[in-house]
């Protein structure tokens, strides 16, 4: 489920960034991302700080609060996708028995490790991903993350710990929250064994508070797309969510949204600046980004005067339930109430609420071949939601990273035909 693809300066025609109506805050975003990787790289080389690998919606606040630097392999997976390195690396993991039908973050990331190739080299001159001292997962998003981290745990001989979340939940019950809170708390001694330092409750609470503030600000940024015309697009948000993922629980994360991105978006709304010139249609994107095709997709939608205003995906890093007064339980709540861990009825209600907020005219479902967890078209949801909201839906077949599963020509025609339909 994850994040970020790296913004690059060399915006030549083959690069994969969304077309520029550039958001000035992007420079700061880029620096935060670069610093994140430099800091990890330095720690890995010198052993100055302990490094925890964490799933993108894993218990990052606890890790921050215990002094770890946190690395997110899904972020690396997204970079492999965005740089289109993934498709050639996936087969190396396939050949080791990891099926082409499972998460292509997993397969491209393991393939990249086996081949000693990482997009970090070109982007930051960093030779390899940082060696972990511990791997920490939460199965709230899928089982693949556990299998993925298990591969590295075996390889590096470091501990693998995690939280097993209830899945496909409708109404969340207190016993579920208590269970998850307890599981998170149980991580503490295991993590203390890695850091060699006692757990510091105040530091933990501070990380929870910083993460909460980041979330509140990130939500405000996303909700700014409710303005007509929208000041930014889903494709922009896939870049600017970087700090909400990797820097949550830090002061830099808060400052990025508070001092840079949100004011800029608000200013755009005041000035009537449209992300898509002459915005005629507004769409909701349900499912994973197709990382290797962000730019052509952004361009196609823009040429059709269509702004993809919002997505479940970018909304997935809003954890404003976090509360430093009750850190374990509020974390349990935040990481269990997630869209991806919920049942169909909840998900439909959620998208219906987004419909009220973002005023879209249609929904694009991305059926990602290797991620059933984020492909919500598979149990009749487009038909049900289309009827309930009275908006047309379109399903595109593709994948987050494995471009062998994507027929660009077909997708383009489908999108064009969908917009024609909206114009009828």
């Amino acid at each position, binding site marked *: 489920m994850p994040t970020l693809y790296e913004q690059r300066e060399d915006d030549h025609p083959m690069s994969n960034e969304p077309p520029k109506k550039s958001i000035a805050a992007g420079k700061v975003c880029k620096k935060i991302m670069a610093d994140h990787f430099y800091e990890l790289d330095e720690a890995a080389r010198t052993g100055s700080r302990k490094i925890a690998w964490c799933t993108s919606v894993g218990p990052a606040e606890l890790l921050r609060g215990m002094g770890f630097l946190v690395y997110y392999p899904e972020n690396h997976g997204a970079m492999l996708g965005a740089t289109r390195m993934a498709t050639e690396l996936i087969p190396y993991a396939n050949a080791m028995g990891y099926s082409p039908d499972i998460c292509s973050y997993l397969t491209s990331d393991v393939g990249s490790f086996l081949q000693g190739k990482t997009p970090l080299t070109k982007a930051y001159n960093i030779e390899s991903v940082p060696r972990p001292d511990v791997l920490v997962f939460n199965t709230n998003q899928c089982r693949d993350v556990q299998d993925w981290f298990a591969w590295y745990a075996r390889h590096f001989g470091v501990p693998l710990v995690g939280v097993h979340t209830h899945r496909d939940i409708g109404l969340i019950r207190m016993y579920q929250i208590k269970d998850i809170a307890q599981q998170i708390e149980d991580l503490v001694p295991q993590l203390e064994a890695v850091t060699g330092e006692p757990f510091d409750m105040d530091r933990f609470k501070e990380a929870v508070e910083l993460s909460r503030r980041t979330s509140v600000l990130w939500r405000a940024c996303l909700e700014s797309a409710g303005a007509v015309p929208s000041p930014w697009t889903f494709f922009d948000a896939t870049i600017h969510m970087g700090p909400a993922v990797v820097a949550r629980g830090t002061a830099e994360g808060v400052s990025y949204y508070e001092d840079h991105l949100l004011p800029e978006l608000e200013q755009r709304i005041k000035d009537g600046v449209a992300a898509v010139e002459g915005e005629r249609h507004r769409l909701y994107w349900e499912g994973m980004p197709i990382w290797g095709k962000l730019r052509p997709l952004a361009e196609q939608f823009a040429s059709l005067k269509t702004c993809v205003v919002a997505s479940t995906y970018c909304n997935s890093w809003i954890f404003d339930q976090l509360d430093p007064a009750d850190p374990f339980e509020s974390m349990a709540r935040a990481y269990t109430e997630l869209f991806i861990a919920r049942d169909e009825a909840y998900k439909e209600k959620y998208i219906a609420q987004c419909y009220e907020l973002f005023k879209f005219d249609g929904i694009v479902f991305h059926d990602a071949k290797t991620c059933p967890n984020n492909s919500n078209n598979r149990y009749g949801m487009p038909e049900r939601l289309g009827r309930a909201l009275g908006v047309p839906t379109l399903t595109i077949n593709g994948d987050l990273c494995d471009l062998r599963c994507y027929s660009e020509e*077909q997708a383009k025609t*489908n999108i064009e035909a969908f917009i024609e339909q909206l114009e*009828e």
Partner: protein
Amino acid sequence: MIGANNHDLFVGIDVGASRTKAAVLDAGKNLLGHAVLRSGTDFERTASAVLEEALAMAGMPGRDGFQCVSTGYGRRNVPFRGDTRTEIGCHAKGCYHEFPEAVTIIDIGGQDNKVIKLDDRGRRLNFKMNRKCAAGTGAFLEEMAMRLGIPLEEMDGLARASEHAEELGSYCTVFSGTEVLEKIRRGIAVPDLVKGIFLSVVKRVLEMDSLSERVVMTGGVVAHNLYLVDMVQEITGREVLVPKHPQLTGAVGAALFAMEINANTSGRGNR
């Protein structure tokens, strides 16, 4: 004066992955000329050639004053187009022209299938294209005909001659080919195999979407294998309508769009 308004001749060019089709209409929406050619690899040349044939049939060889919309996979490779529309839009338009009612269109083309639902005003309610693979398309039939060593044009007659469809189990064209070979070895009669192959095509399209009361079938594969229509009727219990020129539906729809663009000066420009 291609692209300007006030024309009285309207051309639709449908550049499909397998065949390129042209339709020439007059202002009264009468089909004056049409043609179909293999698309080949040089779409521009094929588009010009198919246009020439259709114009000749219309009794106006070499004419260059017309409004043209192109559609299909190679729609942007038609040098003389005034505008483009997707094949989904053009099939809907072409169908509604002949059957002005709420219908579900099943189009079976050389490399893709479409199911399009229209309301009683001809507006699209939704559409689906086949997923990534060739199952259920003309390419599947071609491959199977090749495996059986039967000319494609004989498939329809053979399927009709059978009383028992020998069903194929696999989605995959290559695996189906293997299955066919295995059945030949077991001595299954060729007509039964062909009927099973047709049944596989029909199943693949019917599983794409639900159908509304009225169904129209279009596309080159339907045009040359009308037994598919009988099969869909039998399986669904619905009457299935077929346009006079099923293979030209997209091209006719494109020509009708050309007419609309001509009528209302706000065309969308070359795309």
